[in-house]
């Protein structure tokens, strides 16, 4: 078994150059390079409806940011600076004072959204 593997490894490392001359390599190529590519089963899952753009893309971005916020905030729907930091949302923690315009010590997704809009984000 070990011997078999050794032979396979030796074969894998003997490669043929463009000039037809063999030279040894210690890098492995397990599959041909074909990028991008998807396996046949995944390829059947292509979206058929038109791609989002304009308002639908903005809504998609809004949903994405909201889902991330909600996952970190939990049922309360509110995040403190420390809560944002602990959840890995460093951006919200860094800009917490600007987001927390009511100085409540806790921010909602709407607070966050208004902050992004004020900086020019396309969310609607």
């Amino acid at each position, binding site marked *: 078994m070990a011997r078999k593997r050794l032979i396979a*490894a030796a074969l*894998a*490392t003997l*490669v*043929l*150059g*463009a*000039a037809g*001359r063999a*030279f*040894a*390599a*210690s*890098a*492995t*190529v*397990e*599959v*041909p*390079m*074909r*990028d*991008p*590519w*998807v*396996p*046949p089963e*995944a*390829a*059947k*899952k*292509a*979206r*058929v409806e038109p*791609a*989002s*753009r*304009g308002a639908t*893309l*903005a809504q*998609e*971005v809004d949903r*994405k*940011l909201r889902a*991330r916020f909600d996952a970190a905030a939990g049922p309360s729907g509110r995040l403190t600076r420390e809560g944002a930091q*602990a*959840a*890995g*949302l*460093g*951006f*919200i*923690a*860094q800009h917490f004072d600007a987001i927390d315009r009511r100085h409540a010590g806790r921010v909602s997704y709407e607070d966050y959204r208004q902050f*992004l809009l004020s*900086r*020019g*984000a*396309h*969310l609607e």
Partner: protein
Amino acid sequence: MQPLTLRVLRVACIAGLAALGACGGGGGGGASATPPVQTQAYFDGTIYSSARGASLTQPVETASVTHHTIVLGGATLAYTATAGHLTALAPGSGAAEASFFYVAYTLDGAAPAGRPVTFFYNGGPGSATAWLHLGSYSPRRLATGMPRTDAPTPYPLVDNAETLLDVSDLVFVDAVGSGYSEAVAPNINGTFWGVDADAAVFRDFVMRYIAVNQRQSSPRFLFGESYGTARSAVLADLLESAGVEVKGVVLQSAVLDYNSNCALTARLVLPCTGYVPSYSAIAAYYGKASPNPAPGALPDFLAQARSLAADRYDPAVRANMAAGAMPDASLLASLQSFTGLPATLWQGQLNMAPDSFRSFLMPGTNIGRYDARVNVPGTAPSTGDDDPSSYLITPSFAFRITDYLSTELGYTNPSSYTLLSNAIQTWNFAHDGRGLPDLVPDLAAAFAQNPRLKVLVFDGYDDLATPFFTTEGDLARLPQGDDVVVRSYVGGHMLYLDDDARPLAKADLAAFYRRALGT
């Protein structure tokens, strides 16, 4: 197995060019905030595996350090190369996720605060970053001579006059399960073989690199190729969200929506409209368009090809796919004059996939997928790697990478470097509720969090993997005002291998960085 660290001076002083201060670590420094690290070779005895179920139990953050010089435009730049591993840590818990192999090139004597750092990665998914590392903008590159096919191999490694090191520090990092990168238990490599998990662990590598090297105040850039551009879109959003601002993203041969490229979908359910201008560019390269445009007229010719594709071909091919409607003779005649394929071929196969185009354009000649200018006699083999622009270059990259790491960078490892793993076969392509990923919303989310973000896109006209017109269509979905610049050149997927395109792209890069940095 304990890693063995030993110090040698041989590597740094091998060319006899190293500045006195850089050789052996004494003196020097200048404006640098951190003293130069002494040269050290590193024999890393860890055996790395690309198997889906593999993982390491004890990751080690050790690296070789070597000092080098390169002459750029008459000026000598001294730089330090660091090759080894850093461990990505899970946010919150700090648990080790994966041990990333990277090679960093940092300019000696530069103050880190204003000095950009750029993270490079190839795609696949499952590819190591040796292509960008030894082909594009690092201080050393392989002289491939592409699209020539008669260059002697293995290609020689040469100093790279187009290195981006004069502009930015450079970090080339291998994805989990490729190169010498591997998951840390209880994770396995396969834990990170999906769109979301892969981007998240790259985020954690970037944050680890910044923390360990104290680069918190350095402007950050991302440079991904092919699947690496999909990774960049997700990664840019995740980094912004984590509070790690990204200044700029460079997309080399982008695939931003797997649902817009007809070659990625089963049974050609999508129209191949996005490929028609690429077919036209390639026909023009081979002198098969009629009339064939002079080189200077290529942009105008391709503007017309885009119009043909969008305004006339697209409605016709959709009608053909939906109800079998036959295209009119004038469209078929136009397709023939632009793409060089006979009207009768278009009539029988209106939704022309790129592999069909490759087999029809030059009977008796196999033309490349990554770079259709590369051609060899014969027909494409039906199995394995049928792309001469890929299989002709692969052996040299496979041969040179480990030799270079060991001989020039002082990093030696007994395991095989996995240039291409089979991760792609079991990759989880699902993302945000879709079976195939659409990354445009991720890029848009990055812009939403950072309206100052800048994106530079490189396209090769002769690339039949990520066609430029498809990329333009994907980018057109972004809101006006998002700062995206597209630069297109004669060349393939790996545009940077072309000796004419690389200097032009390097000038574009330098201008892009200046603009992003406000300098």
